[in-house]
């Protein structure tokens, strides 16, 4: 019994999709948490949180599918990576605990400031740690045999801190753009201002990460700057520039939906860029997806479930978004 090479590719795609959906959906939930301190207590914060209350839980579930999916489809990669990013992973989980319960607790207490702080701190910590984990994986981990061979602080580097900060900035951008779409009046005006700043910070951060990544190891460098890799990689920065241009134009014209979807397009391009750097490694330079993949009969058994259930999941998730569509107003609080 061994992995099936074709199904391994399919599974890499499914995991990539799950992580991507997580990032662009829970990304705006976490982004609202990150922006919470610059929002005024009262109507602005209540409106912002009301826009995500019905959907954040489902958004977060994609993280379980992403993590659980790596375990299920690439158990060796999961077994090596989880101990390698032990500290940031556990801090991310603790951040998500504070963020998650803050939704429920803040409406049940007079100490709302405490749970607003938990909402901000938990969201920011979770976002930052997700970025750190990304950086730690990109910069590579020590492997010996079938297990992690490094120490429990190996993940910490200027690069992983940079990727951590980048994810915080980029989620804040998503959060601001989501609020532009879903609110109106003063809350929306503020969201536009936050989107400008978040956009600038994200472009700087993504630019810095993009410049640093190729120099992490020679393999990344050749993929980005030497033929034949450059034929695949060169369009990505160009498309980023084009998307950024349209994003700025949309903000200037005070478009309502376009900034959010253009921000998501930027995420998609970044994601493709990461794919170009990493593929086909599950653990860069150490373990390929084919080495890490689970057995063929597990791959096909799970694929049946994905084929039957993923369309249904996307269907009712879309239904829930549609159900809670429209502007979330502030007049209701007056």
């Amino acid at each position, binding site marked *: *019994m*061994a992995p099936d090479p074709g199904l391994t590719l399919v599974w890499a795609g499914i995991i990539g999709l799950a992580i991507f959906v997580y990032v662009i959906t829970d990304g705006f939930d976490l982004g609202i948490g990150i922006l919470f301190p610059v929002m005024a207590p009262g109507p602005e914060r209540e*409106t912002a*949180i*009301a826009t995500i*209350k*019905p*959907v954040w*839980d*489902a958004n*977060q*579930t994609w993280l*379980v*599918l992403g*993590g*659980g*999916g790596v*375990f299920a489809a690439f*158990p*060796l990669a*999961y*077994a090596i*990576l*989880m*101990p390698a990013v*032990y500290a940031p*992973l*556990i*801090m991310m989980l*603790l951040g*998500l*605990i504070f963020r*998650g*319960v803050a*939704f*429920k*607790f803040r*409406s*049940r*207490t007079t100490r709302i400031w405490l749970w607003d702080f938990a909402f901000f701190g938990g969201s920011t910590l979770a976002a930052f740690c997700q970025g750190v984990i990304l950086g730690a994986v990109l910069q590579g981990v020590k492997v010996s045999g*079938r*297990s*992690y061979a490094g*120490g*429990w602080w190996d993940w910490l580097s200027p690069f992983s801190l940079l990727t951590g900060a980048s994810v915080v900035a980029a989620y804040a951008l998503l959060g601001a753009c989501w609020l532009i779409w879903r609110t109106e009046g003063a809350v929306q005006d503020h969201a536009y201002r936050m989107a400008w700043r978040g956009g600038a910070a994200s472009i700087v951060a993504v630019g810095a990460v993009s410049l640093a990544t190729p120099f992490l190891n020679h393999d990344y460098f050749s993929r980005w700057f030497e033929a034949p890799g450059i034929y695949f990689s060169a369009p990505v920065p160009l498309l980023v520039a084009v998307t950024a241009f349209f994003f700025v134009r949309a903000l200037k014209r005070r478009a309502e939906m376009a900034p959010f979807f253009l921000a998501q397009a930027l995420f998609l391009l970044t994601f493709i860029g990461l794919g170009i750097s990493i593929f086909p490694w599950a653990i860069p330079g150490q373990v390929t997806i084919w080495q890490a993949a*689970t*057995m063929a*009969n*597990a791959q096909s*058994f*799970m694929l049946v*479930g*994905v084929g039957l259930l993923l369309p249904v*999941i996307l269907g009712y998730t879309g239904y*829930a978004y549609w159900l809670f569509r*429209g*502007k979330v*107003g502030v007049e*209701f*609080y007056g």
Partner: protein
Amino acid sequence: MFDDISALSLARFQFAFTVSFHFIFPAFSIGLASYLAVLEGLWLKTGRDVYLQLFKYWLKIFAIAFGMGVVSGIVMAYQFGTNWAAFSDKAGPVIGPLMAYEVLSAFFLESGFLGVMLFGLDRVGKKLHFMATCLVAFGTTVSAFWIIVVNSWMQTPQGYAIAANGQFYATNWLQVIFNPSMPYRLTHTLLGAYLTTALVVGAVGAFHLLKDRKLGRAAQPATKIMFAMAMAMVAVTAPLQVLAGHEHGVNTLAHQPAKIAALEGHYESHDRRAPLILFGVPDDAAQQMHYKVEIPAIGSLILQHDLEASTMGLDKVAPDNRAKVALPFYAFRVMVGLGMLMLLLGAWAAWGAWRGRLFETPLLHRLALAMGPAGFVAVLAGWITTETGRQPFTIFGVLRTAQSASPLDAPAVAASLMAFILVYFFVFGVGSWFILKLMAGEPTPAEQMPDPEQAADVGALPPDAPFGFQLAE
């Protein structure tokens, strides 16, 4: 680093701590979701407002309990990799897909319809909302199914082989899923969840009956209904649970006799007429039970339905394959003892109802109130019994716990354990406090007026919303 005992014990303690804390919430929310579905169904069928009152009252509590279950559950999804990397690598090809099915068939269903259940009544109408409630309840049960499949396969593995690289893989998925202990463990766990919820609902009802009595006022109809429903559930479920637990034990004897020997406290084998040890102080070093109180021959009777049957003791198990007796032995007695008290509570309530004195028996209400947390204690004791009883293995008989851990140094595991302990006690302590505060309020019609604090929940809802009240958090 695999021989580093202290990192291993810390990892074990961390798993026990995070899974025990986590399990408290699903043990409650599995039953509560079904209770909510029943309440909403009764409301739709009878049109009586009292059921809607009860639905809203328990929905607020459900939202908090479910939320805590979700966030503590995400920790579990990653705990396998962080602390049990070697296990994840080896067992991944078998249990990974089962857990993927749990995410796909349960987690998305629950989280997708939870928003509708909490905030959607005025947007989707009664019938669709009822469907959302039923889907959430169904999701909690499906989730229990898959995770019990995983646990049961680790207890009674079958349908697998071991590849050259050391990984387990399935040779027959149906055998993996329908492994010998799964149906018994699933039934026992689900009944445990229903009992836990019934005891909590019953205790809240009893608390308000006692309070109303003390203040000399008539009990609210909603209070009476919740108490009666809860006691009916206990009266029916407790005997079923005793039966299911017994069958589960018989099944364990067939597949994990060493575990039975440990939880029964049988260090020695008996050719015939094995005693039932009621109590004692186990001593693993001497392989002896001190101060034991026992009934002759009943052990054979209970497990094998034959006074003359022989039983296996730990002396038939290789010394390095023996579980430490104390935890499973004591935990088992706690669980069974509480089960007997539940049986008593159910019987007493049934008797009271038959005599028409269900709401006028303060002593019964006091017992019901005291038994409120009994379900949680019993399910945790049950889990401690089954999990410590299968040691020193993670996959019974095949993969040792010591070979399952991550290559981590003790300080890393100790630091994360401390962080979990601090955060869990703070966060879930506060959450439980909010739940208790909600329970301290009696469900009354007056309580459903919109609370401006929670206006945010309904977003841009027009003020003349069809139901004119706030659902939710």
